[in-house]
């Protein structure tokens, strides 16, 4: 059955409401279906027969069920509610019944249908308006406002000083490591002295034995002096040289020890 309507437009299908197309999917819910049905009454929505409408709907649901068409729960809820409304409209009112009258219920349903129809009309009018990008147009080459973003960097004298102070004090926080390249070891001093000592027949200032390039830089000089002094003591101990210092803070002098065998 449904197939025979396949090619028809939705509108035609809807207008053929009396045949009651059993294509529930075509409707957006029970209210939509009811609104479509009400159109067949071809009267002002405020004057339609809700009773007639309810009967139509119930017949539709029955037929749909007969065709074993899956009906969404809200269709069945609506059917139950309409059956209830129908009974209210047909039977004399029970004076003890506290609920709303059938008339009120019917009036509200009519209001709902009319409101839905009104919104559909409004939607149609809205979509029929001239639309931007279809009927009227915006500027084709918008010159977007150029945001000239000027970044201004600031730094105060305090920032500057703190940065410098941080750099200069960084060693305090650095784990202690030997600066190897600035260190002259005793072994190096010993090697150097052993090689040079044979030429030291006379008392010579120990400081003149500092290696080349280690005399001026205070740090290197300190390291070389200490290593050379320690090496000289080692050579004295080994009996290779003599050492002397004339006064406090006077220069330390060394001399090759005369070899007893040498004569």
């Amino acid at each position, binding site marked *: 059955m449904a197939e025979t309507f396949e090619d028809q437009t939705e509108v035609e299908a809807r207008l053929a409401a009396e045949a009651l197309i059993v294509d529930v999917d075509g409707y*957006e819910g029970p209210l*939509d279906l009811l609104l479509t049905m009400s159109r067949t009454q071809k009267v002002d929505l405020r004057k339609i*027969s809700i009773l007639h409408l309810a009967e139509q709907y119930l017949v539709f649901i029955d037929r749909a069920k007969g065709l074993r068409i899956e009906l969404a729960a809200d269709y069945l809820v609506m059917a139950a509610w309409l059956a209830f409304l129908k009974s209210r409209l047909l039977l004399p009112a029970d004076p003890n019944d506290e609920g709303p009258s*059938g008339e009120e219920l019917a009036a509200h349903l009519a209001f709902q249908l009319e409101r*839905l129809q009104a919104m559909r009309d409004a939607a149609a009018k809205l979509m029929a308006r*001239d639309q931007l990008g279809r009927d009227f147009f*915006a500027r084709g080459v918008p*010159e977007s406002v150029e945001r000239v973003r000027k970044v201004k960097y600031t730094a105060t004298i305090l920032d500057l000083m703190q940065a410098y102070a941080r750099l200069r004090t960084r060693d305090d926080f650095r784990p202690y490591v030997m600066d190897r390249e600035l260190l002259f070891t005793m072994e190096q001093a010993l090697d150097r002295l052993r090689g040079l000592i044979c030429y030291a027949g006379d008392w010579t200032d120990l400081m003149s034995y500092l290696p080349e390039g280690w005399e001026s830089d205070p740090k290197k000089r300190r390291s070389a002096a200490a290593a050379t002094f320690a090496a000289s003591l080692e050579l004295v101990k080994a009996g290779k040289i003599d050492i002397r210092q004339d006064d406090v803070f006077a220069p330390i002098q060394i001399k090759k020890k005369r070899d007893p065998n040498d004569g």
Partner: protein
Amino acid sequence: MTVEAPQNDSLFEAPPMGEQERMVEAVLFATAEPVTVRELAARLPHGSDPAEALVHLKKRYEGRGVSVVKVGDAWAIRTAPDLGFLMQKETVETRKLSRAAIETLAIIAYHQPVTRAEIEEIRGVGVSRGTIDQLLELEWIRFGRRRMTPGRPVTYVVTQEFLDHFGLESARDLPGLKELRAAGLLENRPPPGQGPGLDTGEDDEAEEDENQGEMFEP
């Protein structure tokens, strides 16, 4: 004539109105989006009165190929609608909206601010997530204030883009709005007792009806 760069300095006098009109014209021509009076005021030299300049400008463009239109509280220049046929090349193919989306949009426009539950009540069917999403994505609707009712549901309202798209000065200019309101069709009328799928309104004490049934019959 040389125009001073904008100065937030009241020492400089505002430029003459004719000059202000030129400036508003330049700014509106330069942007595709509507520009608010406040933004115009911020961009024009200090002491300018863009609102007045707009009045002059609007008048100047009456009957021309483009016109100065009000969109919400902003202003824009748009081509005259009767010349749309010249612009086939510029036409933007918009995604076709589903019937559900169009109806939902209309309901939001005419009933705003409106909650999702209210939209569903009016349509008599659930509103799918995708429908609302699509409208939000088009920037035709946005979230309004939460309703001060239990659950504090969000509401939806239409945007400036919506007004711009449909050439409306404000939501009050929606077609047929007055008539719908007069007919009471924009009311959120609580159903008597329990309606189908509706929340409880106030329980109107049911009056006994004398003539049952066919009172709606013509």
